[in-house]
């Protein structure tokens, strides 16, 4: 039920490169899982509110007071491409 085009579309949304074999396998595996999961659409859930948080917490706020930041060396310590105090990345323009 998940075809090749849908798999490629979702892979692009998720920024995941999949090879041909993976695309086929993913289509089959995801379809199988979705077929099983789909059964929940048979339930009568009209008027049932969704739950995103089971134990309610409201107004978790923080005072607008500065706390120490990391020193720049720590921030860049594991950067794949530190450049002039920043994080180097390939150009968004190029493909």
């Amino acid at each position, binding site marked *: 039920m998940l075809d090749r085009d849908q798999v490629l579309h979702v892979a692009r949304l998720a920024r995941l490169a999949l090879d041909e074999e993976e695309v086929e396998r993913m289509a089959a595996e995801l379809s199988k899982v979705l077929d099983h999961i789909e059964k929940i659409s048979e339930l009568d859930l009209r008027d049932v509110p969704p739950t995103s948080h089971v134990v309610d917490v*409201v107004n978790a706020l923080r005072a607008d007071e500065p706390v120490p930041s990391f*020193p720049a060396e720590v921030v860049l310590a594991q950067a794949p491409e530190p450049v002039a105090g*920043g994080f180097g990345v390939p150009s968004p323009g190029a493909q």
Partner: protein
Amino acid sequence: MSEETYEPVIGLEIHVQLSTRTKMFCGCELSFGDQPNTHTCAVCLGLPGSLPVLNARAVHFGTMIGLALGSEIAERSLFHRKNYFYPDLPKGYQISQYDVPLCRGGGLDGIRVHRVHLEEDAAKL
């Protein structure tokens, strides 16, 4: 077709930086002109395991704006994740408000306001 067939409808999406001392979801100080990456922490860098905590003053300012515009202030408001990839978006999602914004409606000088909501913004790449 004549000119009378069409009516221009113009919508403005205005991003307003709030004059808080710290960022929206972490306690890093806002300051301009300093060296890059000297006011960053686990949260705003999107380091694994970090979690956001909302700035109380930002909520206060957002509410003030809503009141000033005559908006309806939500009794209960939610944040959502807006997912996309870009280098200035460390977590790969922006914490914003989707269907339950802080303020709805209101207006100024005859211009209707649809909504006012809070979100984090990269401000500058």
